[in-house]
């Protein structure tokens, strides 16, 4: 039953959590489309202020689709850490080493806070699956 590697990369899309996510997105987009259509009818009936909403709702629907596409793309190709996260050693949550033999006691408050942040992020990601917490 094992598919090709190409197919298995996409298999997460049919896991229950992702199916629920797809359904939610479809529901939201259809709902927004319906609201836009409703505003269009109101605008045509003479409510001039409805014209703005006639265009606004489809815009939000498009944005929702863009957001959904990003979540899928991020799952397949997790985004690279930001340069400073990379610098500080994400995703392991490892602290940055400035050089060989750097003494441990010299971290400033910022770095300590940041290391705590990295550790928490790493823990969250572990608990939830991958980057998006959807799997």
């Amino acid at each position, binding site marked *: 039953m094992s598919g090709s590697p190409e197919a298995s990369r996409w298999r997460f899309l049919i896991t229950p959590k992702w199916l629920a996510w797809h359904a939610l997105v479809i529901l939201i987009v259809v709902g927004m489309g319906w609201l836009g259509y409703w505003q269009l009818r109101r605008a045509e009936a003479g409510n001039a202020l409805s014209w703005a909403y006639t265009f606004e709702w489809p815009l939000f629907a498009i944005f929702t689709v863009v957001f959904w596409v990003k979540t899928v793309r991020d799952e397949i190709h997790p985004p690279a850490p930001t340069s400073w996260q*990379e610098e*500080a050693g994400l995703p392991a949550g490892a602290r940055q080493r400035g050089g060989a033999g750097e003494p441990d006691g010299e971290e400033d408050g910022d770095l300590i806070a940041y290391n705590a942040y990295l550790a928490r992020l790493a823990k969250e990601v572990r608990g939830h699956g991958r980057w998006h*917490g959807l799997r």
Partner: protein
Amino acid sequence: MAGGTVSGSGHTPDERAKEVRRVRLNVVLYRVMAYVTGVVLIVLCVLAIMQAFVNDEAAVSVVGQIHGGLYIVYLLVAFSLCRRLRLPTWPTVAVLLAGTIPVMTFIVERWISHRYIDPALAGATAAANPPVPEPRS
């Protein structure tokens, strides 16, 4: 990364500093939009409640449209910030939807600042000014 050296990450200190500046600008824009959108939304709600007593539809419509326009800008700024900070999906959704719920932008802005923005900026500062290694003698 495993080697423990700074080289090999593909980012020069210059690019790093540039990215940190972009994130800072994005944070400022997000905060401004969160507060402006939040205030306009509260005004809209007050007007909508007043409409029950004084029938003045025009004011509600105008403020509603202003909020609609501001919310689009808020969405763009907030989404871009969430991407830059690599926020997970649900915090991102919470940030984006906050602009439509009265008072929520203020609460979410505090929460996101405390939980993600401040630590990220602290890390950015630390990474932008890496400790200078001791010269070997």
